[in-house]
């Protein structure tokens, strides 16, 4: 039983990562056969060994933690801004109508195109990076919160009002638990964009962060470091995404248990 469970999990893992494994195998093979352009494409083995070595160094962890610090700060800021606005817009259709067009107007503005403006407004350093992560995070989160609030079961709301629940109680006991899965989904959607922009944002006015590390590697032709930086970004993205998926799944299980 245990053995078949392990085999089944292994099979599932292999299938879910099939394309990645194929590409990794081909890269490995190309390196072994000497088919890769050594200037631009180091072998997979070189990249993995280099990444492993970098992860033993305090300096590299400093870069990782610097980027993560900005990402989580930006996330937190986007949450505290999007949450009240999303609940209000989701609860009151007139507020939704009043603000919707403005949000749709600013939504397509490319954060990287705005970054020079952020630098002019906020200078170089932590602030423009925080603002750019906030910029890409808050709108997907906002829309998810609005949708979550609008999808709250009307029967629960009516029942709560019937029993004399205050607005605060309705918000705390019904709306917030109901929209939690939507918030988590919004965060998960935002994380990919945040990683993209933080790498670009750290290329200006920085001396730390994975983006700075990658740019410096490219300027000094340490191409294997460049690949290691990219690999670490990808791993961070997968780990954070997996965490949100796990959290989302457990929240849904919890909510389903509550319904029963």
């Amino acid at each position, binding site marked *: 039983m245990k053995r078949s469970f392990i085999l089944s999990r292994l099979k599932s893992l292999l299938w879910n990562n099939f*394309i990645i494994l*194929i*590409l990794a*195998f*081909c*890269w490995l*093979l*190309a390196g072994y*056969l000497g*088919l*890769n*352009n*050594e*200037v*631009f*494409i180091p072998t997979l083995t070189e990249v993995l060994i280099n990444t492993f070595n970098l992860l033993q160094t305090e300096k590299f962890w400093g870069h990782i933690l610097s980027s993560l610090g900005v990402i989580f700060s930006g996330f937190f800021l986007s949450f505290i801004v999007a949450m009240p606005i999303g609940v209000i817009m989701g609860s009151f259709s007139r507020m939704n109508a009043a603000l919707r067009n403005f949000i749709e107007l600013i939504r397509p503005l490319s954060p990287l195109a705005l970054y020079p403006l952020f*630098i*002019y407004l906020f*200078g*170089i*350093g932590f602030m423009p990076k925080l603002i750019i992560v906030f910029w890409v995070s808050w709108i997907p989160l906002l829309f998810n919160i609005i949708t979550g609030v609008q999808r709250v079961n009307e029967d629960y709301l009516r029942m709560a009002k019937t029993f004399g629940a205050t607005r605060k109680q309705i918000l705390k006991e019904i709306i917030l638990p109901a929209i939690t899965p939507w918030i988590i989904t919004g965060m998960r959607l935002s994380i990919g964009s945040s990683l993209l922009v933080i790498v670009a944002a750290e290329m*200006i*006015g*920085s*001396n730390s962060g994975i983006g*700075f590390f990658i*740019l*410096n590697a*490219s*300027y*000094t*032709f*340490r*191409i294997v470091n460049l690949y290691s930086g990219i690999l670490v970004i990808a791993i961070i993205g997968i780990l954070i995404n997996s965490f949100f998926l796990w959290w989302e799944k457990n929240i849904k299980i919890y909510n389903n248990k509550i319904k029963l």
Partner: protein
Amino acid sequence: MNKLSIFIAIAAIIIIGFFWLNNQKNDESLGSKERVVHEINYAQIKVFDPVYIALDQGYFDDEGLVLNLKGETFGGPQALMATASGDVDAGIAATTAIINAVAAGVNVKGILDVQSSMNDSALMKWYVLEDSIIKNPNDLRGKKIGVNTLGASFHYTVIQYLKDNNISENEVEFLAVPHGNLEQALRAKQIDVAGMIDPFSEIAYDRGGLRILFTAMDVLGENQFSLIFMSERKMLNDPEAVRKFSRAYKRAVDFINNNPEQAAEIIANIFEVDKKYISQHKFQPEAQVREDDINYWLEFMKSQSVPGLEDLTVDGIGTNEFNQ
């Protein structure tokens, strides 16, 4: 054979085929007997470059050389990368960037002088706000210094300046800020010192409120820090084109030396700035590559524990072979 096996085989063929084709492109570029076309693809960077003068004065046409300006790169490392990929044959880069590129296996060499700090033409200058408390080197401790790129000429020159004044580089903080943002960062007090070159330095200084803390001349004396580089592919396949390029380039340098005002005007038009913001640039005699200065930068980078430089020699980085 089941469907899965077929899929795997196709995926592997596609990926390996990609690498093989990429390798073929490089092999063909290096050694094949291609028809010699006296043409050079040049990665342009908007800096004071005699190539613009040569184009303006028709020197390349006189030589029967077609010079194609390619794209607009932000700096030497990008131009070097474009050369490595085969898109361009030549460009400008700091000697330090060329050293890094050669160490990484990019087949290029510096062939002509393009930026040297000389009397009346320091080029690299470091500025502070006029009312800054930084008056001497010791005041730099704990301060933020903005340079365009870490691991390049501006950065290393400051490190040398600090060393000369018994200050460790760990006692200051370096920030990589693009040339276009350095003045703003300095005035906003995001950085305490900004290392700039013209036209940015001249524009910033002209706006007032800044003073020069030190220049490259103060630290390095006369020093060549940037070169025109050429791909070895081009030097091997079409040496005549490289010689034609060198001859036209040297004529442009003569023009600049004899007609500085006119040269400044040509460059100012390209930068779309006022002529007064273009510094006077001076060049080595015959635009020669100075081996001593290549050696200086190579040894400096080795002292900074830059990896991969052990086997590098000066003649692997620069040459005057096409500049006789």
